[in-house]
């Protein structure tokens, strides 16, 4: 309960900052629309040429793109800014001030900053999903929606864990901008239905960087096609990633010697 209250206090602080820059918000909205529509161009070219790609029709592939946008919005608004702030703390040695506070440090740093503006990306994603579903003409049942929401939640947790792991590396290497950039560039592949990727890449995107779980599974869920086994797989992968990141975080804190150390 206390953590929930802390969460809202931190969210409110970020909202106040965001509302100071209203013009920026509008610019970001425009950017999100441009980014979303320009990212659709390869798909448009592709589906201008044929009906299905790797078993996915145009509206079905749009669903994946929609979920990709939703996740990317959450990543850029909630996960990435806070963890960028941790890296700054580590570099300057100000992480000590966070560690001194009487609450869990991982919680505090993870909720420190929200880039409210980036949420526009998620909104665009919801719009795309709605459009794709209307094109499909087949609406998901309550079970499908619940499964999709659950799996998007899993996706967020996996992304969060990966970023905590990247921050863990910051304790060792200090500079990790390029690692998060590298991750973002790989994450971009989640825009495509997972069955497009074959061979080694399919393996990597299922087990090491579970992109399939993040965007293809929720798309399957709203199409009422997700098998219980796949759902179990998503939950399992999420649990593994969360445990891994928590252990890594605690290990890293133990070896953190602060700036003077």
């Amino acid at each position: 309960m206390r953590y929930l209250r802390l969460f809202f206090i931190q969210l409110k602080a970020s909202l106040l900052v965001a509302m100071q820059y209203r013009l920026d918000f509008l610019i970001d909205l425009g950017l999100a629309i441009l980014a979303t529509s320009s990212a659709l161009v390869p798909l448009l070219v592709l589906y201008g040429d044929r009906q299905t790609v790797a078993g996915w029709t145009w509206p079905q592939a749009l669903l994946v793109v929609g979920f990709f946008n939703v996740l990317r919005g959450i990543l850029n608004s909630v996960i990435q800014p806070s963890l960028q702030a941790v890296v700054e703390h580590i570099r300057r040695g100000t992480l000590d001030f966070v560690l001194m506070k009487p609450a869990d440090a991982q919680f505090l740093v993870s909720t420190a900053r929200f880039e409210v503006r980036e949420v526009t990306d998620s909104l665009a994603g919801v719009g795309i999903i709605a459009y794709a579903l209307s094109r499909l003409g087949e609406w998901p049942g309550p079970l499908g929606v619940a499964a999709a929401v659950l799996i998007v939640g899993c996706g967020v947790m996996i992304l969060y864990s990966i970023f905590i792991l990247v921050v863990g590396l910051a304790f060792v290497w200090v500079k990790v901008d390029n690692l998060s950039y590298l991750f973002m560039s790989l994450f971009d592949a989640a825009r495509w239905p997972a069955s497009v990727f074959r061979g080694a890449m399919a393996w990597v995107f299922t087990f090491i960087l579970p992109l399939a779980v993040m965007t293809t599974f929720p798309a399957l869920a709203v199409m009422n096609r997700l098998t219980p086994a796949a759902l179990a797989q998503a939950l399992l992968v999420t649990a593994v990633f969360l445990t891994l990141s928590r252990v890594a975080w605690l290990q890293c804190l133990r070896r953190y010697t602060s700036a003077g150390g």
Partner: protein
Amino acid sequence: MSKRAVPWYDLLVTLFKVGFADAVAYRGEMFVWLLATNMPLIMLVLWSAVAAEAPVGRYGQREFAAYFLSTLVVRLLTGAWVVWTMNLEIKNGQLAMRLIRPVHPFWMFAAENVAAWPLRAVMAVPIGVAAVWMVGGQYFTRDLRQWALFPIAVLSAWLLNFSIMLVIGCLAFFWQSSFGAFEVWFRLYIVFSGYVVPVDLFPRVLQDALRYLPFRYLLAFPVETALGTISFTTALHDLARQWLFISLALAVAVVLWQRGVRRYEAFGG
């Protein structure tokens, strides 16, 4: 500006050496940055999977492989990051350190970016050789004139990229969130330069329009020169257009810079 004791080329060579030392010192970091240039590979896998079912336009699997590996090479060789440097230094005041030196900062930026070429080439050249070897020479041009033109096209593409980044970087003098402009530019670049879709798969009208826009001269033009999908005459025309855009961008950058620095000095007080 004080009278220089050393000739300008000595200055440039020194700047280049400093930049190169910097690049070598942070080679691990640079390697990760270069790894992040993986979009052509993802696009290659994607389009190959599509072409496995049936070719798209004139592109079968091998054509796509030749195309996207060339794209990767050209992208690695033409990368610049001056817009990030300028944005950061203008905002946190570090730019003042450059202004007191007796070289125009544009030259310093250029030297820093050019200094990364050797390391970038170490990565790009093997990819290029492997591409020709694996995909097969018949998917590339056999016209020696085109191969002679290719390095010129790549260097010019770098210069165009660099100049456009200078223009956008200068916007930071006038506008707090100028980096948004770069993001808009970059989104358009990704789509219309041939980075994710070969330009000749676009509808005819769009292809024609793109000849009058800068995007294709940053990437598609050198790539198509190497592949031989454009004729030598067309390539020469493209080169001329490329240089038109370079002169335009450089002229705008110089003007913006002069105005910006005037404001900046007044602002810094």
